[in-house]
């Protein structure tokens, strides 16, 4: 099916034209308009009626009803595992419900697959953008709906693909060369390309599954700009996020899911943090907690001098004191993770030195660095942090196998069981027991185990890279509490985060990292939303 036909089909289905297309005629097909239908009334109310969905014995959605209205941003909130993503996937034709119905305006839809959903104008921007890295951006945007020209079947009209995809990205204010391979795009760009894909297909109902968790605040701002514009043009928008501030900012209506059922639904007038949080977790949490910034003292436990990498960062100097929590603020790609990995021996560096407790560990092996008391809790949990098919016990002890071995190499099984038990208790993990495989746990609980794996090695310095990424509110609170406790016990902690409020809540000192350099340092009272926000953008340096 050609893109133009897809767009036309959609127009006739909803009696309305792609509004963005008016500002730029090239966004939609750019040909054979149906002017008689342009003035049709606004439509696009997508409803889930008593949807039930189970995976094997696990009932994820329990008779959930939800209605997304046109011209509204409707947010789903809830802890990990509450069923938010599943509900969106059902609406987008990825999962078929076991029971219940999906209706668009007055019609009941039978969404056999995502393609059928897109034909009805429903598009899901997935949590992890599903672009094909080896294809160009333009090809990705037209994937499955490549327009053809000429009489020969299958002769693809490359030129129009290029110009039309380029124009549509420009309409969204994106400066991306569509001939470039998709793998060169940042996650934020990939998400926006997904969004543009939805528009090109003429979709009027766009669901965003946690789009902001890998984004920095500036990128979030950009995305929200686009979402608002779409809302004003009458699109129906669904949104999932764990970040309370964002949700309050962008939503017109919020539904809270807990254990597969809607526990609360409020419109803008009724927004209230504590109400939402208690609807989400079923208990009250302390919010607005801010760390009493302390001036740490003593000799530095970690000293970094002149750390340089040919392309990622240069001349990094650090002095971290015991009991101090230091934040790395910066955009994704600013070099935060690269610096942390280089300090911990996971990445090459071309110059500089790292000294831990008076011991030079610049070129030490990773096992030695861990033994010396420096650990790095990686950002990408599934790839670097957890070994999902293995048990909780095996994961919890994975960082200290050497210590658990007796002289002939046998593992101390009692000690292993003890560490696993302690980790489960100390980090309040919800699990059946130490033998349960990691992959059966929710994201937040997995993160707690990964966290516990490193903390049980008793490090003196820990670097936490996005410690609460993709973690629900309850687990987040627990993790913050743990970080506080650890720092009080004298551990020095570096927190890398894209979340402004997280850095403000946790850190004694914040270092702004911009384009591979430390551009500013904030401490004590200097740490405010405005100053940290500026730090993200390079604090004085000219943003690219």
């Amino acid at each position, binding site marked *: 099916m050609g893109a133009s036909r897809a767009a036309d089909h959609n127009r006739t289905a909803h009696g309305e034209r792609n509004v963005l297309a008016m500002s730029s005629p090239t966004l939609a097909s750019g040909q054979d308009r149906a002017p008689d239908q342009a003035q049709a009334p606004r439509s696009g109310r997508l409803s889930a*009626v008593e949807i039930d969905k189970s*995976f*094997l014995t*696990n009932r994820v959605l329990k008779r959930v009803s939800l209605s997304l209205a046109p011209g509204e941003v409707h947010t789903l909130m809830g802890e990990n595992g509450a069923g938010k993503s599943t509900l969106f996937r059902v609406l987008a034709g990825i999962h*078929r*419900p*076991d*029971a*219940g*119905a999906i209706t668009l305006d007055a019609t*009941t839809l039978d969404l056999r697959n995502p393609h059928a959903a897109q034909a009805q104008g429903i598009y899901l921007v997935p949590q992890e953008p599903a672009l094909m890295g080896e294809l160009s951006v333009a090809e990705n945007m037209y994937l499955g709906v490549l327009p053809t020209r000429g009489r020969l079947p299958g002769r693809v009209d490359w030129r129009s693909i290029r110009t039309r995809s380029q124009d549509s990205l420009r309409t969204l204010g994106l400066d991306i060369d569509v001939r470039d391979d998709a793998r060169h795009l940042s996650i934020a760009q990939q998400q926006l390309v997904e969004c543009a894909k939805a528009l090109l297909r003429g979709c009027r109902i766009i669901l965003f599954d946690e789009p902001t968790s890998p984004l920095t605040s500036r990128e979030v701002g950009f995305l929200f700009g686009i979402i608002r514009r779409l809302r004003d043009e009458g699109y129906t928008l669904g949104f999932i996020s764990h970040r309370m501030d964002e949700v309050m900012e962008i939503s017109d209506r919020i539904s809270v899911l807990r254990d597969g059922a809607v526990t609360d639904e409020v419109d803008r007038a009724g927004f209230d943090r504590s109400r939402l949080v208690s609807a989400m977790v079923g208990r009250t949490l302390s919010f607005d907690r801010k760390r009493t910034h302390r001036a740490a003292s003593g000799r530095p436990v970690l000293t970094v001098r002149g750390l340089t990498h040919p392309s990622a960062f240069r001349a990094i100097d650090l002095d971290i004191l015991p009991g101090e929590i230091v934040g790395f603020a910066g955009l994704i790609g600013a070099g935060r993770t690269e610096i942390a990995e280089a300090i911990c021996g*996971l990445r090459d560096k071309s110059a500089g030195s790292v000294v831990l407790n008076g011991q030079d560990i610049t070129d030490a*092996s*990773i*096992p030695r*660095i*861990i033994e010396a008391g420096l650990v*790095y809790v*990686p950002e990408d949990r599934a*790839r*670097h*942090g*957890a*070994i*999902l*098919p*293995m048990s909780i016990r*095996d994961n919890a002890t*994975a*960082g200290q*196998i*050497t210590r*658990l*071995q007796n002289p002939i*190499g*046998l*593992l101390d*099984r009692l000690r292993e069981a003890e560490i696993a038990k302690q980790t489960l208790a100390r980090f309040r993990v919800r699990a059946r027991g130490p033998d349960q*495989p990691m*992959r*059966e746990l929710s994201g937040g609980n997995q993160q707690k185990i990964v966290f516990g*794996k490193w903390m049980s090695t008793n490090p003196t310095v820990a670097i936490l890279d996005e410690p609460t990424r993709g973690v629900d509110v309850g687990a987040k609170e627990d993790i913050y509490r743990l970080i506080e406790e650890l720092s009080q016990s004298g551990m020095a902690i570096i927190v890398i985060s894209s979340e402004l409020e997280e850095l403000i809540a946790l850190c004694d000192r914040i270092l702004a990292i911009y384009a591979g350099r430390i551009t500013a340092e904030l401490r004590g009272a200097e740490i405010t939303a405005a100053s940290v926000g500026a730090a993200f953008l390079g604090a004085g340096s000219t943003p690219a």
Partner: protein
Amino acid sequence: MNRFLPRHAWDRTLAIILIALLVAFCTLIPGFYAGFGGTLAITDQFLPFGFVAIGLAVVILTGGIDLSVGAIASLSAVIMAILTKSGGLDIWLAAVLALIIGAILGWLNGIVITSLRVEPLIATLATSFIYTSVATALAGASPPYGFGKPFGVLGNGTIALVLPVQLLMFIGIAIGFSILITRTGFGRRIVMVGYNRDAAHYAGVAVPGLLRKVYAISGFMAAFAGIVLASYYDAVRPDMGNILLLTAITMVVLGGVSIFGGEGGILGVTLGVLILGVLRQGMLIAGFSDMVTTMLTGAILLVSIAAKNLLSDRGFGYGALLLRLINSRKQEATPPNT
């Protein structure tokens, strides 16, 4: 959600199959049950495959593969024969040296894989050509034979008149390797690397060093199989290891070790070795040709992989596809109640 099988279900299934097979053969095939000792003696025919399979299983657990096991078995055995026949070394000393050489050849595989960054499949395919041609060159036109009666005990001997030496060694090695994988830090690291190499690296596992050791173990076990074969035949040939590879891979996979790494254990491999070995020997005794048994081996390989993929819903296997099809049928059958 991905785990349909409870823990050890695969091992249990294999044990039941093995018992069923033994009972069926003893009752149905005349001549299969030739007294307790006679039946146990059958194992002499296939346990060299088992030695290779156990070493290979360790490699496959890390997510790798070793195609050079047959070549290493041949080369080590040829070197042993030359050391004792032309070099005048004591045969047992020559055998120990051959084991060390096998380990070194495997370690070289590991070097190629970790330092030159060649994929295990290609690296060991290449070295298998090299090792085979070296073995052929060393063996010459008339390979040595006749290593004396005491050495023959390794391949043909029995202890207490009925217990084959090979079987006792196999049991000992299987127990040793099982402890290595499940109870030691080294084994835990192997499984971690097999499931998620990156995460193992971040957790402080020295992955390249570990892989080199693993390939050395595989080379050592291959050399061991070669020496046992030399003892069994009382001769060596530069192509004697050729038959080992494919059957050994089949045994490992049948034993429940995932070719993606991480999943599986030595108990399963041991059972896989016994099932496949008993099945082939039983069929040969029953009068089926080697052709038929080989065909059956192929079919078993396919069925066991398909069954595992189907049951564990893993990856892009056709099993998973089938399961999905069945599920979607079921869903279509349920009418939506609006």
